[in-house]
């Protein structure tokens, strides 16, 4: 199951936006629900920030007998093959996944917005050159490139993030360029130009704020994709090395116990599920909120 995840995430990351049609129609006309959905990422951030407080045990040190089922010997989600608390490990794992995803999104936004806005505002050959450059990166397969980077630099979370970060910005560059070009054709920009506002100020004050809605929605929908991609890479062993709690690696290592002690593999999977779902729900919620405006 998780293996399928690795290879399909690449595709999923191209088709932005998830969540079933049914849920969407349910969500569509309810601004209060949308607000709640949009605030989910903040709740998750709070949750993973508080991981050290919430985790009942040290995630790296055995705290009791191995393979305790959930609810036994004080292990709420059970214990793993060496007796470490599954709940604590999942919480810390979620923390790593969540912040990794946010870091990649942030780097993608910084690179993408810079390239996209420069291309759109400058136009002409600069636009062409920058957008063809973007196309090159758009054509690179994300997970494969990440594997190559990690293979070259050695296994580490930072290297994985660098590998994913390299391919994660082109989409933002395209979104920003498209939005700016649409905004630039509107009278308010011409009016600003006639007011004598210089091009840099015009870009920052009259164009970029207008791209915010599209960017916020795209980025939040992307969190889910990233969580899945990163978990897939970590499942393949391309993440933080052994003892550190990582959701993908945990489910991979405990896959052998799936039939007898299911929780060891399923609980990390649930963590991934929650993060990916939160990303998608928040994106849908934000999209509906922006549409209402």
């Amino acid at each position, binding site marked *: 199951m998780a293996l399928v995840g690795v290879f399909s995430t690449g595709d999923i990351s191209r088709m932005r936006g998830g969540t079933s049609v049914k849920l969407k129609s349910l969500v569509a006309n309810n601004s209060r629900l949308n607000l709640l959905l949009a605030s989910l990422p903040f709740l998750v951030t709070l949750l993973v920030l508080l991981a050290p407080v919430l985790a009942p045990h040290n995630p790296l040190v055995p705290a009791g007998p191995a393979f305790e089922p959930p609810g036994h010997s004080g292990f709420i989600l059970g214990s793993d093959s060496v007796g470490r608390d599954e709940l604590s490990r999942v919480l810390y794992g979620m923390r790593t996944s969540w912040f990794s995803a946010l870091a990649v999104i942030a780097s993608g936004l910084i690179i993408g917005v810079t390239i996209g806005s420069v291309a759109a505002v400058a136009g002409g050959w600069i636009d062409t050159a920058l957008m063809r450059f973007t196309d090159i990166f758009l054509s690179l397969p994300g997970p494969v490139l990440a594997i190559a980077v990690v293979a070259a630099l050695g296994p580490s979370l930072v290297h994985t993030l660098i590998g994913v970060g390299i391919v994660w910005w082109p989409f933002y560059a395209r979104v920003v360029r498209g939005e700016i070009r649409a905004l630039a054709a*509107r*009278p*308010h*920009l*011409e*009016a*600003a*130009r*006639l*007011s*004598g*506002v*210089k091009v840099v*100020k015009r870009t920052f*004050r*009259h164009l970029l*704020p*207008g791209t915010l809605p599209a960017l916020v929605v795209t980025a939040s929908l992307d969190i889910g994709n990233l969580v899945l991609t990163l978990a897939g890479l970590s499942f393949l062993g391309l993440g933080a090395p052994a003892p550190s709690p990582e959701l993908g690696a945990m489910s991979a290592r405990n896959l052998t116990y799936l039939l007898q002690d299911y929780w060891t593999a399923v609980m990390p999977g649930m963590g991934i599920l929650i993060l990916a779902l939160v990303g998608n729900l928040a994106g849908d919620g934000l999209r509906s909120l922006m549409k209402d405006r």
Partner: protein
Amino acid sequence: MRSRFLNSQMLAMRVEGLNGNPSRPTSQDSAQQNTHSITTESSRSGSVAEVTGLKVTFKRANENIFALRGVDLSIQPSEIVALVGESGSGKSVLGLSLLGLVTHNSKPEISGKVSVADIDVLSATESQLQTLRRHHLGAVFQDPMTSLNPTMRVGKQLNEVTTSTKESIELLRSVGVPEPEKRFGAFPFELSGGLRQRVMIAMALAGSPKLIVADEPTTALDVTVQAQILNLILSVREQYGTSFLLITHDLGVASMVADRVVVMYGGQIVETGSTKTILKDPKHPYTQGLLRSRLTLEGTTTGRISTMIGEGYDARTLPLGCGFSPRCSQSTTLCRESAPELRTYSKDHLLSCWLETQSYPGTQSSVAEEVKVDDAYVDTTSPTKEASTYDTHASTPSGGEVLVGDLVVSFKVGSSRKKDSLKALRGVTLEVKAGSALAIVGESGSGKSTLLRSLVGLNTPSSGSITVPPSGEIQMVFQDAGASLTPWMTVQELLDERLFAAGIRSKSERQTRTGLACESVGLHSQMLAAKAFQLSGGQRQRAALARAIVVPPKVLLCDEPTSALDVSLAAIVLNLIAELRQKLHMTLLFVTHDLAVAKIIAEEVAVMYLGQVVERGSTRQILESPMHPYTKSLISAVPGGSRERLTLKGEPASPLAVPSGCSFHPRCSEAVNKCTEQEQLLYVSKASKGHFVRCGIALEGK
């Protein structure tokens, strides 16, 4: 209002009875249906449509929108009733109610009775409604491009409502579509705006309906084409005996075709009477105000237009008394506390106003009252008179000159493989003296906006010369003021930015100037903290003007700043622009499609046609002794008044395919052979000084 609630293409389909039941019954079927399920109109004499006590309330989020608050209306056979009102008056909702379309959306609260051809529209089943729409009703909406299905050939769309191709072609011919066999296979985008509207009318006519509801059918069209469509409505009535409900914001349009005018305000009918009565002897202060704000070519009015207080009605509130009382200067306590009813004032003249019905049965209002009415039109736009500090900033009229020499602007259009050159301007020469005002008049595609945009550098000229003041001293006001204000910035920020760009670094100075500018344009300083979407239409235009003049420019360019506004608001904005121009000694270039606006605002007029100036002269010369055949027909097409009607044939040619010789010759009634070959030059009239005309024939005739 309409577009917010419904998609007009869906509406058009519903009206044609296509929804759900594509098969059209044969005439025998329909005759049968008529006999048993529907009492036909002929069985009962009297009106085609009857509306009694109609109330419609829409519910959105947490608000109620009281669209109609008790409306009574009846339409007689082959009568043309004009429903006049400003945006938000409920006129479109009333039209939709008659078509049985209001029940379909957003589950509004409806009470009252609507019957068309003796069918109760409100309680009818969907199939009854379809029969009704198919046989008794037709509809024409404002924008035929959105009402026609863009993916279907017009013939196929027509065939859905007629029985045969032959009938469809006949219908096209009867509404004046040239070469109907050829047009039959055309897609809507291949037709011009006027032809599309004719196709819509043909569709509405199919099945010879008793009533056609036409919602602003000419608003999106050029003046000369509008005149053609209005003529068509008259001839359809003549030929088929069809009744029309003509919904319009323009009293001029109403006066040209309607038998009876119904004036709506705030979801109620405030006055109704024969067109003559309403135009000559209106009794309701609102109707009087509308008439005063209206611009016509008649009369000697120059300078200030009388305006009404305040802005349009807010349908979210339910007034206790008369809906117009907050804007009515004569309102009394009675007006504010108790709503007047629509009563008979004189024969065929109904009025809903306490002021008049109290004095009723008095014959005419006394002279004293008339004077009172005049005073009532308080000058709301007038800023403080002592703006002397401001005058010092505005330099002497020197350097405000605008010179344009043989300007050519062409655009590349089409795909990269097949590039066409669109010549928007084909050699325009203009000379505007510092401090004077020039109105540039023309229909769509005449290049008038391109000219304006070229002056400020938004378009790059292909050849020719432009002499204008440097960029900081030339400012422009756009047609859509709302869109010209950056949506996420406050008015304060926008003004501040303009001042900063003009090199004013001191914050206190910027504040003083901002305050002065707001005062000049009549914008309350509280509005400085607002963003565009929080402002009303009038406030947006004021804010846009404030930005243009906060650093007084030498030249102010206006691109149809009033064409999207309601009549009463347009008057206020025009007054404001005229006043600012006087105060700041600005040169004014005002682009408009409306000659009446040009008359008010400018001393000189340049008439443009297909990228050329065809006639130029003082406003008086142009309006009183026009020489060019195009100018003549343009003047005669302006609604209102009792001028001789010269309806122009055809529509302006596309700037992509400019006709040879004199570009106007295909539409010109005075064209002779050489007009097709020989390009006309801009001649100077010997008889009247400063009058130029691009027509040798007209010049010789003079």
